[in-house]
C-alpha cells in the first residue's frame, strides 16, 4: 500500500540524448494516491511501458525521482520495492506446479511454509484456481496462466502496487471480459494501488478510477473516464477515446466568432490564446440532425448496432454524427446542429475555450 509520486521523470534509451526527440519520456509529474485504480492509456510507443518499468524498478530513469510514500526508491531494485507486475504474456515457471508458482515469491523471501500455504490458499480461492493447485503450470490455458501470473503478484501481502502491462493481449475476447471483472473485484478485495497499462480504451475506462492519457512520451490529460470523454484537453484524447472519435474540424477565427466552412459556430465559451492553428472539436454524440443549421450532404450511413453513424459533408469537410432512430438517405441534404456546450476550440491541438460559469 503506498502513495506514488513521480517527480520530473525523464528517460532516454540513448546514452547521450541531444534533443527532446531522443527522450522516450519527457517530464512526467504525477501523484497517485494509495489504493487507487489507475490506467495508462496511449498508442503503442507512447512511453507507457517505459513509465511502468521505471515505477517497477526494471529501468532506472535518466532524470527524476520515484517516491513511494515519500521515500525515494529511484535507485532500488524491483525486489526491494515490494511491487508486483503482470506482463503482456503470461510468465509461468513451467517445471513447477500451480501451487509452487504461487508460492515462489514468498519462498524466495523466506516466508515460513505454514504462512505460504495459507496465502496461496487465499489467493487461489480469489482467482478460482483452487482445483488447479496440484497440476503442472505448463499445461494451463492462456487465461489461467495469466491468472497465475496475477496471483504471483498478489500473493505477497506487502505489495505497494500491482502493475499490469497490457495483460489481456493474449486472452480470447470472451474471457477478457471475465478477467477484467475479476481484476476489478481483486482491486476491491486487496486494496493495493493498481496501475493498468493498455492501448485499449475500453479496458482503461472500465478498469480505472483515473486514466492517464499519454502521447509521444508526454502526459496529455489525466482525468476520470467521464472527464476524458466529455472534455478532452487535446484533440488526440478526443480522437483516441470514443468510437467514433471526436470530430476535429478546421476553423478560422474572425474576431470573436469562429468560422467552420464559412459558418459561425457557437462554442462553450470564449476562445483563449493568440496565434496558432485553430480547430473545432465536437463528439459525434453531440451533433444532431436539425431543421436549420449547417447544411450538409449525407455521404454514408453505417449501422453499428445500437445506433447509426452518419457521415455528412459540410463544404469540403466530413463530419460524423451519431443518430438514433430514423436515418437520412445517402445523397440527401440535411442540417446539422452542434450542441454549443459540447463544442470547443482547440489551438495547436490543445483545448482553447473557457467554459462559461454557470
Amino acid at each position, binding site marked *: 500500500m503506498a502513495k506514488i509520486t513521480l517527480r520530473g521523470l525523464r528517460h532516454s534509451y540513448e546514452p547521450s540524448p541531444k534533443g527532446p526527440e531522443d527522450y522516450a519520456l519527457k517530464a512526467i509529474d504525477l501523484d497517485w494516491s494509495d489504493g487507487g485504480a489507475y490506467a495508462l492509456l496511449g498508442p503503442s510507443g507512447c512511453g507507457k511501458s517505459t513509465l511502468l*518499468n521505471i515505477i*517497477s524498478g*526494471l529501468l532506472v530513469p535518466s532524470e527524476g525521482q520515484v517516491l513511494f510514500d515519500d521515500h525515494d526508491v529511484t535507485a532500488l*531494485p*524491483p*525486489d526491494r520495492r515490494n*511491487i*508486483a*507486475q503482470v*506482463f*503482456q*504474456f503470461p*510468465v509461468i*515457471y*513451467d*517445471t*513447477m506446479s500451480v501451487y509452487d508458482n504461487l508460492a*515462489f*515469491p514468498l519462498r*524466495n*523471501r523466506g516466508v515460513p511454509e505454514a504462512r505460504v500455504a495459507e496465502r496461496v490458499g487465499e489467493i487461489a480461492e480469489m482467482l478460482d484456481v483452487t482445483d488447479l493447485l496440484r497440476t503442472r503450470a*505448463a*499445461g494451463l490455458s492462456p487465461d489461467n496462466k495469466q491468472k497465475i*501470473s496475477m496471483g*504471483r*503478484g498478489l500473493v505477497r501481502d506487502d505489495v505497494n502496487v500491482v502493475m499490469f502491462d497490457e495483460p489481456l493481449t493474449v486472452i480470447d475476447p470472451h474471457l477478457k471480459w471475465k478477467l477484467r471483472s475479476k481484476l476489478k473485484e481483486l482491486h476491491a478485495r486487496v486494496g493495493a494501488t493498481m496501475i493498468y497499462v493498455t492501448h485499449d480504451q475500453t479496458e482503461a475506462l472500465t478498469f480505472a478510477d483515473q486514466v492517464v492519457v499519454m502521447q509521444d512520451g508526454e502526459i496529455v490529460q489525466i482525468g476520470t473516464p467521464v472527464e476524458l470523454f466529455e472534455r478532452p484537453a487535446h484533440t488526440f484524447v478526443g480522437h483516441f477515446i470514443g468510437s467514433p472519435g471526436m470530430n476535429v474540424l478546421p476553423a478560422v477565427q474572425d474576431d470573436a466568432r469562429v468560422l467552420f466552412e464559412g459558418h459561425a459556430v457557437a462554442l462553450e465559451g470564449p476562445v483563449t490564446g493568440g496565434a496558432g492553428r485553430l480547430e473545432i472539436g465536437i463528439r459525434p454524440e453531440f451533433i444532431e440532425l436539425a431543421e436549420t443549421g449547417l447544411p450538409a450532404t449525407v455521404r454514408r450511413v453505417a449501422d453499428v448496432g445500437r445506433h447509426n453513424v452518419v457521415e455528412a459533408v459540410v463544404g469540403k469537410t466530413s463530419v460524423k454524427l451519431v443518430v438514433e432512430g430514423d436515418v437520412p438517405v445517402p445523397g440527401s441534404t440535411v442540417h446539422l446542429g452542434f450542441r454549443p456546450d459540447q463544442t470547443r476550440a482547440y489551438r495547436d491541438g490543445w483545448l482553447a475555450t473557457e467554459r462559461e460559469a454557470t
Partner: protein
Amino acid sequence: MRTHNQKAWFFVLPVLLLVAFNALIPMMTVVNYSVQETFGNNVFFWEGLRWFQELLNSDRFHAALGRQFLFTGIILAVEIPLGIIIALAMPRKGMWVPVCLVLMALPMLIPWNVVGAMWNIFTLPRIGMLGYFMNDVLGVHYDMTQNPTAAWITIVIMDVWHWTSLVVLLCYAGLVSIPDAYYQAAKIDGASGWAVFRHIQLPKMKQVLTIAILLRFMDSFNIYTEPFVLTGGGPGNSTTLLSIDLVKIALGQFDLGPAAAMSLIYFAVTLLVSWLFYTLMTKDDEP
C-alpha cells in the same frame, strides 16, 4: 464408393529409393556378411550366429566398448556443463554477438582429419607448442606416443575443443528465445541467480540440450577420424575406441564376418542408448 488414387506412391518413391541405397541395402549387405565366413575369391560359408557369440564373449570387444563408453562419458561430462556455462556468459545483444558466434563456430568448420593432425603436431614433444611447454618448460613427461594418460588427455581436450561449440550454439539459441519478461518477473519475484537458472533457463534449454546431448553422444560414440590421426589407437591399445577396433578387424585382419557382426552390435548399442535417452527426456512432455 470412394475411388482410391494410387498416384501417391510415386511421390513416396524417391524417398524410398534414397533410403534404400543410403541405408537399407548397405545394411543388409552387412547383415549378410555377419552370418558368413569368407577367405576371399567371393566364396562364402554359412556360420549362423557364431560371430555374434564370439564377439559378445571377447575380452577385446569388452575392452574397446568400455573405452568407448569412458570416452563418451568424459566428453559429455565436460562439454555439456562447459557449453552451458559459455552460453550463459555470452552477450545477448550488441556488437560482440556476431564476434562470439563466429569464434564459436570456427572449430566446427575444420575438417576432422585436420583437427587430428593439428593436435598431433601441437602436442609432439620438442616440436609442438604444448609438447614443448609441458616437457621442456614444466618438466612434465607428456608424450602421447608413449604415455596412455597423455594420449587420453589429448583426445579428450581435442574433442572438447572441437565440439563444445555445438553445445554452446544450441544452448545459446535456447537462451535467446527466452522473453525478457521472464527475467523481469523473476527479478520482481525475488528469485536468486540459481533459481533463475533452475526454473527459467534450464527448462527453456531442455529441448535443445536433449538434441545437443544426443548429437554429442552419437558423434562421440562413432568417433574415428580424429583419434585415428592423432594416436592411431595407441600407445598399445589404450585409445583403441570401438570404431578404430572395427576398422582394424575389417580392413587390417580382413575378417569380414566378425567385423560385420561387430558393426551390427555397435549400431544396436548406439541406437538403444539414443532411444532410451530420448524417451526418458521426452516422456513427461505435453502430448
